[in-house]
């Protein structure tokens, strides 16, 4: 009988990624709700000293796969090792992050394990021993509630920035164990030959706590200067609408929306963005939305918690100064 909740933590270059704590916190909540225990799984190289940390977030056990071949994420090595760990432990629920790593892994691992897999979920519950997941579809134009057949584990990825992180408790500890696995070099068919850091040095939009975004109303690439200044003042990342990206003002990496990134920040400030349905879909899980636009009829105001109808080139610099006064 499948038992327990398992989460797959993430590290990059030896640093534990934030999504790992989101998964541990949510995993603990689901484990408590179903009277089960939480196991965290950590893959990497020289990573074992980081494992105990997951105990403070409620993991009862941490399974560590420590191997130089796991230093950098590759689909084949990670899918193979995780599949072995999952088969040995037999969890009822398996959670990963809907990060670039988790999304790459999810299809491969689900096919390997032959189980149902729910991508990019924003809410979980346990009913009758099965995971029930809520996931936005059509980029958030509809929500699907999904559950599983009788095969285990029930597998899902959690959207970054959505699951609340519980405060760590120093009194809690986890048993740290080495994973038993075999890994054949010839089975690793891809190789990461280079990793190029983004020039902006800012947090990726999918993980950002705050986003300042600009659209057609920015009038040109230099229009984004005012947004960059506001972003610097509040430590936000800068996003863009599709029209700003298609006009060549910003790179594809900055696009928010149905054919760009789906984001869930605490604060989303939309400047000069009218709010096409595809854009609204990409930012609908933001907690607070601010719209600044000259056009009072712009659909973005229907989705905004706070709106200012005025010229953004006057409002945004003033807002930057006012914010500096209050923080």
């Amino acid at each position, binding site marked *: 009988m499948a038992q327990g909740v398992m989460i797959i933590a993430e590290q990059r270059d030896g640093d534990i990624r934030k999504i790992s704590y989101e998964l541990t916190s949510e995993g603990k909540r689901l484990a408590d709700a179903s009277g089960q225990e939480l196991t965290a799984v950590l893959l990497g190289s020289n990573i074992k000293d980081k494992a105990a940390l997951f105990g403070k977030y409620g993991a009862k056990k941490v399974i560590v796969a420590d191997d130089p071949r796991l230093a950098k994420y590759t689909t084949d090595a990670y899918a193979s090792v995780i599949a072995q760990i999952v088969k040995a432990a037999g969890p009822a629920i398996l959670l990963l992050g809907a990060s670039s790593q988790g999304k790459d892994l999810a299809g491969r691992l689900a096919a390997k394990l032959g189980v149902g897999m729910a991508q990019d979920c924003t809410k979980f519950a346990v009913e009758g021993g099965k995971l029930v997941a809520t996931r936005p579809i059509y*980029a958030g134009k509809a929500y699907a509630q999904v559950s599983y057949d009788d095969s285990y584990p029930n597998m899902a990825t959690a959207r970054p920035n959505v699951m609340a992180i519980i405060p760590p408790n120093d009194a809690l500890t986890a048993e740290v164990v080495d994973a038993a696995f075999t890994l054949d070099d010839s089975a690793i068919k891809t190789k990461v030959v280079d990793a190029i850091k983004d020039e902006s040095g800012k947090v990726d939009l999918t993980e950002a706590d705050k986003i300042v975004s600009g659209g057609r109303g920015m009038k040109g690439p230099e229009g984004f200067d005012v947004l960059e200044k506001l972003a610097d003042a509040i430590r936000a990342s800068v996003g863009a609408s599709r029209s700003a990206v298609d006009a060549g003002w910003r790179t594809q990496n900055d696009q928010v929306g149905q054919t760009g990134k789906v984001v869930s920040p605490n604060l989303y400030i939309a400047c000069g963005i009218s709010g096409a349905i595809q854009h609204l879909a990409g930012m609908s899980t933001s907690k607070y939305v601010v719209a600044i636009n000259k056009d009072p009829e712009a659909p973005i105001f229907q989705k905004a918690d*706070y709106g200012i109808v005025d010229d953004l080139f006057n409002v*945004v610099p003033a807002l930057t100064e006012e914010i500096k006064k209050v923080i």
Partner: protein
Amino acid sequence: MNIIVCMKQVPDTEAQIKIGPDGKSIAENDIKWVMNPYDEYGVEEALRLKEKFGGEVTVIGLGPKRVAESIRTALAMGADKGILITDPALDGSDSLAVAKALAAAIKTVSYDIIFAGQRGVDDDSGLVGAAIAEYLDIPQISIITKLEVSEDGKTVKANRPVEGETHVVEANTPVLLTTQKGLNEPRYASLPGIMKAKKKPLDEKTLESLGLNAAEFGKDARKLKIVALTPPPQRAAGKIIDGDSPQTKAAQLAKLLHEEAKVI
């Protein structure tokens, strides 16, 4: 070099999505069906590789008969032939079942590179590409924005943006690549292209003709069950901040964000 492009037909991204009467699917009336935008990058990249290396581009779609129209669009762009897997038993299949059927059809064609869109803009699952690679036991590189293929066509090097950096990943062919916006600018079908496409081969396959067992497909065989679809949660009406100048409005907003929303 033989290239396969997996193609899904999806509602146009302009479409308003309404829930159907069963509460588990979308209302399909008034929907304009198009090629999944992410698959267009796969078609374009396949055509560019064909122009350089020669060979054949095969587009494989799955679904009801209307999917043939989107395959014809790819043929009009320049692909050589199409395969449509169509079978009433496929209705309501989940991602893994779809991947299984596509993998079975892919095995009937010779291939060096397979392209699939990084996700369908309908279900947003992004599972099919990786699952096909698993079923074919070939490597995958997902969500790529740049591709280089060696002169001998034996190795690929792809850029894959991950949070805060871009990984450059290498693999030997055969390989499956999932395509992201930024990879290229897909061409439009030309008028002569559209005329030619009408004469290009488009084979229909059923589950049986692919040697598959219909019982493993369709709604009842789903491993991921749909409980219900609902409209998205509505945001409560917001506050429009009034004031006699941009400065006074900005000052009020700063105060609200700090004191009421507590986000700064």
